[in-house]
């Protein structure tokens, strides 16, 4: 499995992208911004198609749109928290723009097919070159470092924004910065698992960690480990059974993890109750 270069590239990029998704995802779930992450993934799609339509490097389109829209969304809402209806309306329109760019692209290039759109939507982790993988790793490491450096105030600001603001924590700035990091991670993950599936890598491991861990730092570590594990297992599965696309395999593993964690969490919380009932008064 490691003999193939595409597999090594996929593992390199996947490991770091997975770690970044798991880490940032933990805060996304904590701050109840899953819908914003969802919107960002769709925005990334439109940005990538715009870049393709106008002949710019896809990565430029991805990062520019994801980060600009992330900060814009944060700026719209109170305390860098945009409301669901505004997000929904904006991203429905941006998807419509994506369709327009797709049409421009397909009418302009005589080869006219949907391959570019499919690559953006569902990712192409096995198609990454060595330099693609290194860039993905570098961006992910930067995102991880930024999140870890701000982890303490970010926890504070996420759990109790009013008290944090009273203590002098720059709550609004943290919210904007966090959305910008989320945008960068979404743009990078789009290349690995695709615009439509990255939500699974952001939400599922984090949700599983939230169910299992009591302490925030343990949860953070668990979420990261789950995401990386899902990427590894998914890549291996897709390598063994070539008909299953890697992004589908990764998301399936992540979903399974969440189901197991939910089952385990419920069993764990039911256990004390059963014990209490069993002990005679």
């Amino acid at each position, binding site marked *: 499995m490691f003999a193939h270069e595409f597999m090594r590239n996929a593992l390199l990029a996947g490991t770091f992208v997975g770690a970044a998704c798991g880490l940032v995802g933990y805060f996304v779930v904590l701050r109840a911004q899953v819908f914003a992450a969802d919107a960002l993934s769709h925005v990334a799609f439109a940005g990538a198609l715009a870049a393709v339509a106008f002949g710019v490097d896809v990565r430029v389109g991805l990062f520019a749109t994801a980060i600009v829209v992330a900060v814009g969304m944060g700026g719209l809402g109170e305390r860098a928290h945009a409301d669901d209806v505004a997000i929904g309306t904006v991203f429905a329109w941006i998807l419509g723009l994506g369709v327009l760019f797709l049409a421009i692209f397909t009418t302009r290039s005589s080869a006219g097919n949907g391959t570019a759109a*499919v690559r953006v939507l569902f990712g192409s982790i096995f198609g990454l070159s060595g330099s693609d993988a290194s860039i993905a790793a570098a961006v992910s490491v930067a995102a991880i470092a930024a999140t870890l450096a701000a982890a303490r105030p970010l926890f504070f600001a996420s759990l109790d924004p009013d008290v944090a603001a009273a203590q002098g924590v720059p709550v609004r700035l943290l919210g904007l910065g966090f959305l910008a990091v989320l945008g960068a991670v979404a743009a990078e993950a789009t290349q690995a698992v695709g615009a439509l599936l990255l939500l699974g890598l952001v939400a599922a491991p984090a949700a599983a960690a939230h169910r299992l861990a009591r302490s925030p730092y343990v949860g953070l570590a668990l979420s990261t480990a789950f995401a990386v594990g899902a990427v590894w297992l998914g890549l291996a599965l897709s390598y063994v059974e070539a008909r299953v696309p890697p992004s589908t395999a990764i998301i399936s593993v992540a979903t399974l993890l969440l189901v197991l964690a939910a089952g385990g969490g419920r069993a764990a919380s039911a256990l004390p109750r059963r014990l209490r009932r069993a002990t005679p008064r």
Partner: protein
Amino acid sequence: MSIEASVFQGLSWNVPADVRALVSYHFMVNALEAGTAVAVMAGAIGWFMVLRRQTFAGHTLAVIAFPGAAGASLAGLPLVAGYFGACVAGALALAGVSADRTGSHSRESAATGTVQAFALGLGFLFVGLYHGLLNGLDALLFGTFLGITDGQARTLVAVAAGALLVLAVAGRPLLFASVDGDVARAAGVPVRALSLGFLVLLGLAVAATSQITGALLVFALLVAPAATAQQLTARPLPGLGLSVGIGLAVTWLGLALAYFSIYPAGFFITSLAFGAYVTARVFRAVRTD
């Protein structure tokens, strides 16, 4: 040649003649008929969805339509069965996720997001297994209004009529339960049953809409007209009427523009809907100043 002339071919600015050109083709009549049914249903159900703050659930249901359709074409079933089956099943799954009272709101939305990503992953797998569907994939995700058959249009009208009937019967208690769930429960309104029923209704609306707009653009018809209406009025009946009206206008104009242009209907419909929303927000901001 101006840009307008190259983008909008055959548009003469003579409105009656343009309208006659529009309805002279059978496929356009079908598209307008289906679009009307979908716009009315999406406008009404979307109004309740926005009121209940279930936009994320609505979007997830919309996305589930895609694996449903892809799975149906893989299994050789009619597409309509795939759309409706998947969306109703998705509605039940979402109701199950939200019925889990142990979780907080953010956990619930994380579970919803996971359902969505998993469904998309499945859809991608089905498309991969069903070889040579790349162009079909585009249609499933972004919709096509050119190929709507008589049967499809009739089905959509029937579904819309049924959904509106249910909404007319259950509208009052649903409104009560949506605005103040606790008081409604105390007054003996079956809040849980209503919430499950509404999700199924939403699933039906989404399944019908996504056949026209594609799984990814459903949202434009479901959320934007309703959000616009709620910017303008808080009263239920005028709000519902406004939402349906905006949905109709956006759909008709969007289809007409797409007919005369080389660009897809999805782009025009979403842009018009977004334009209406922005206008309403600006209007409201100016009025309250």
